[in-house]
């Protein structure tokens, strides 16, 4: 094929542009971390109570849009790159070895295997069918949303590096312990017996290595676009609600219920109905921290909420039954409470 203008234009658009966007997003994040200032002007709304009721969500979203767009750009592009470049089929053979190391691998690989939370439940089922055992599959299921790259980057930017790290590390150990404990239950054995009857229907014939760099980059770009399309409506709706929480929730209530051990306990439970896998939880926690929430309580929420969220539990229950879901959900809340209490006494 002769090199003409059309080819060059396509190459620029499909290969150069995605990497430029990723690099630019990363640059805004580094710039902000290094200098403490934003690269581009940020809109400040001052005090929310100075605005009319209908103006509050508008100024709130505008403020975040000017403050967080670089981070979100980086996070989503990175999500796309991970989805397109990570050879997941090759990971399967490590995950399905039945020794104890598969728990660690499940926890380590979970974040790079699911950029989109909607894929989590089918992968969970796929792992069991592929022979991974219920324990490591549960570890994967719990770790994936808690250590999702997009969520971690957004947490670092909006909350703090310390809390983001604590979230990932404590979720890592919690997911492994819960996965192991769940595998000992009768419900887990029942699931394993039932899945042993499900034969794999097909052979896998994925030419991951045959894809060129340009093709993978194109995939990464489309992937990022798909993620953005999925998350944006929920994010806007979530911010709309969070803006009113920020404006009207009295700090006295936050001080009374969301601090100390009470705060840790309540946060572990609150996450169950409040969590949505759309980054909104990070903006909500940011608002609550500003109103005086204990960082330990925030951490508890961020660990418990994605592990025991209602939409994910309903999906998993349809696959492996309610008993198993109940077991791991209760364990998640307990583990998050322990992790939060640990953080409260070590770091406060």
């Amino acid at each position, binding site marked *: 094929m002769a090199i003409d203008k059309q080819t060059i234009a396509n190459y620029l658009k499909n290969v150069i542009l995605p990497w430029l966007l990723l690099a630019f997003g990363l640059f805004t994040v580094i710039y902000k971390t290094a200098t403490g200032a934003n690269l581009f002007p940020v809109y400040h709304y001052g005090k929310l109570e100075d605005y009319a009721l209908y103006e509050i969500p508008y100024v709130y979203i505008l403020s975040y849009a000017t403050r967080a767009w670089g981070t979100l750009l980086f996070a989503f592009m990175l999500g796309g790159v991970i*989805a*397109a470049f990570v050879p*997941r*089929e090759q*990971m*399967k053979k490590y995950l399905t070895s039945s020794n104890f190391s598969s728990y660690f691998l499940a926890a380590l690989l979970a974040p790079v*295997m*699911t950029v*989109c939370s*909607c*894929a989590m*439940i*089918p*992968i*969970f*089922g*796929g*792992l*069991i*069918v*592929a022979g991974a055992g219920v324990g490591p599959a549960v570890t994967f299921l719990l770790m994936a949303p808690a250590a999702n790259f997009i969520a971690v980057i957004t947490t670092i930017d909006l909350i703090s590096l310390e809390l983001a790290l604590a979230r990932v590390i404590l979720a890592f150990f919690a997911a492994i312990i819960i996965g192991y404990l769940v595998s000992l239950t009768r419900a887990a054995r029942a699931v394993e017996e039932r899945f042993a009857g*499900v*034969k*794999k*229907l*097909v*052979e*896998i*014939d*994925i*030419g991951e290595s045959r*894809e060129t760099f340009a*093709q993978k980059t*194109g*995939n990464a770009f*489309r*992937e990022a676009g*798909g*993620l953005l*399309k*999925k998350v944006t409506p929920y994010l806007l709706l979530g911010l709309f609600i969070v803006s009113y929480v920020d404006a009207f929730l009295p700090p006295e209530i936050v001080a009374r219920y969301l601090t100390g051990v009470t705060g840790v306990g309540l946060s572990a439970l609150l996450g169950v109905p409040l969590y949505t896998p759309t980054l909104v939880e990070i903006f909500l926690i940011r608002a609550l921290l500003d109103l005086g929430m204990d960082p330990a309580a925030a951490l508890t929420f961020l660990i418990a909420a994605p592990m025991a969220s209602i939409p994910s539990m309903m*999906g998993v229950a*349809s*696959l492996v039954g309610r008993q198993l879901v109940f077991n791991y959900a209760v364990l998640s809340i307990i583990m998050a409470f322990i992790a939060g209490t640990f953080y409260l006494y070590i770091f406060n």
Partner: protein
Amino acid sequence: MDIKILGPGCPRCEQVHKAVMEAVRETGVEASVEKVTDTMQIASYGVLGTPAIVIDGKVKSAGKIPTKDQVKEWLS
């Protein structure tokens, strides 16, 4: 040709469905395209990622959004 698209119905699955439909139309191959949305059924393919494309019993892609051109290669 028997094409199955495995996915719980997120926007990414729609993107894949669109790419497959266009590839089928443009190549003119005789193919039945079916969306598999049931989690248990998706799981039974043992794929580590959705959306996945299964062509004549072979998993061609999982957890990715391939282009129309890539799909065309699999169809030929």
